[in-house]
C-alpha cells in the first residue's frame, strides 16, 4: 500500500521518458519551478499524513494550485524583469527543508517510542531544533 506512490513516481518517470514531449527552451524554467512546487507539496503531504492532519482535497488542490501559481509567478517575473522565480525558489526551498526536517524528527520519534515502548500517542518534541 505504501509503495503505491513510489510505483506512481516510477510510472510517471516512465511516461515522461516514453512520451516524446518537449517543452520549448523558453518555458523550461517554468517547468523547473513547477517541479519545485510539486516537490514541496508532496513533502508537505507526507508530513501532514505523519502528523495525521492529512486532507486529500487540500493536498490535491494544493499540488496543482501551487504548481500553477509558481509557474505564473515566474512568468510575471519574466514579464516585469524581476526575478520573481527566485522568490518561489527560496520559499519552496525553505518549506521543503522544513518539511523534511519535521518528517525526519517524526520518524525518529516513532522509532524511539517503538523501541522504548513508551506511552503511545505520537507525542512530538517541541519544534525548536530545526
Amino acid at each position, binding site marked *: 500500500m505504501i509503495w503505491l*506512490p513510489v510505483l*506512481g513516481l516510477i510510472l*510517471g518517470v*516512465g511516461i*515522461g521518458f516514453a512520451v516524446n514531449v518537449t*517543452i520549448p527552451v523558453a518555458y523550461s524554467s517554468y517547468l523547473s519551478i513547477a*517541479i519545485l512546487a510539486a516537490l514541496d507539496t508532496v513533502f508537505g*503531504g507526507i508530513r501532514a499524513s505523519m502528523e495525521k492532519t492529512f486532507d*486529500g482535497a487540500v493536498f490535491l488542490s494544493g499540488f496543482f494550485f501551487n504548481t500553477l501559481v509558481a509557474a505564473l509567478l515566474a512568468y510575471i517575473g519574466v514579464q516585469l524583469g524581476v526575478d520573481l522565480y527566485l522568490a518561489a525558489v527560496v520559499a519552496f526551498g525553505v518549506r521543503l527543508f522544513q518539511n523534511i526536517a519535521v518528517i525526519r524528527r517524526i520518524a525518529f520519534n516513532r522509532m524511539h517510542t517503538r523501541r522504548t515502548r513508551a506511552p503511545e500517542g505520537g507525542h512530538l518534541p517541541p519544534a525548536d531544533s530545526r
Partner: protein
Amino acid sequence: MIATRTKLTLSLTVVAVVLGFMISVQYKQQASARVTPVPMARDTDEQRMVTQLDALKQANAQAQKELADITSKLSVYEKQSAGSDGSLKQLQQVLQDERILAGLTAVTGPGVSVTLMDGVAKGGDVSQYLTHDWDIRSVINELFTAGAEAVSINGYRVVATSGVFCTGPVVRVNDHRIGAPFVIQAIGDPQTLKSALTQQGGVLDALRQRGVNVSDPQIQQVIKMPPFTAGPTAGGDTSGDGEG
C-alpha cells in the same frame, strides 16, 4: 482510518505520477541541452545565414532582371525617338556602339568561340600546362585588337573595366569566380576574329606549344551575350554560358 489511508495513498500516487512525469521531461530537456548546446546554436546561425544569402541572391537576380528589362525598354524608346532626323540617328548609333562597348546592353550577333582547357601534364613544369589568367587576357586582347565588339568568358561580359585575375584554382572575371574550361566568345566579324586567333605563331599557337588544351575557334552565326554584371549573381542566371 482505512478510508483516509486509502485516500492518502491514492492522492499521493496521483501526485507522484504527475511529479515523475514533470521531472523526467525536464531531465530529458536538460540532458539534451547539455549534450548539444553549441552545435545547435551554430546550426541555427548557419541556417539563418544561408537563408539570408539565398534571399540576397534572389533579390540580386531580380534586380539584374529588372535592370536588363529597363535597359531594353530604354533602347526601344531611343529607337522610337530617333525618328527621321539624320544627325540624331547618327548620334543614336554612336551611343548604341558605346553602350555595346561598355557592356550595358545584351548583344547578339555572329562571332567566334574558343575554349581553353588545362592540358594534361606530361612531366616538367606543371604550371605550363595550366590555363592562367594572363593566357585568357592575351586571347581577349587579341580578339579586341582584331575588332571584336563584345567579348565574354563563360557568359560573363568583358568590358574596359573588367579584370581577369588568378585566384588560386579559379579565375576571377568581374568578381565572378569561374573555373576551367574557359569558353571565350567574341562578337564581331567572324572571319577576321578567327584569322586573328589562328594566325601562325599567334596566341593560340603559343598556348598549344605549351601544352594547354585549346580548341579550334568556331564560327558561330548567333552568339547571345548578357550585359556586364559586376558582382556575383545567383547561379549564373545572367550567363549565356557556353555555346550561345
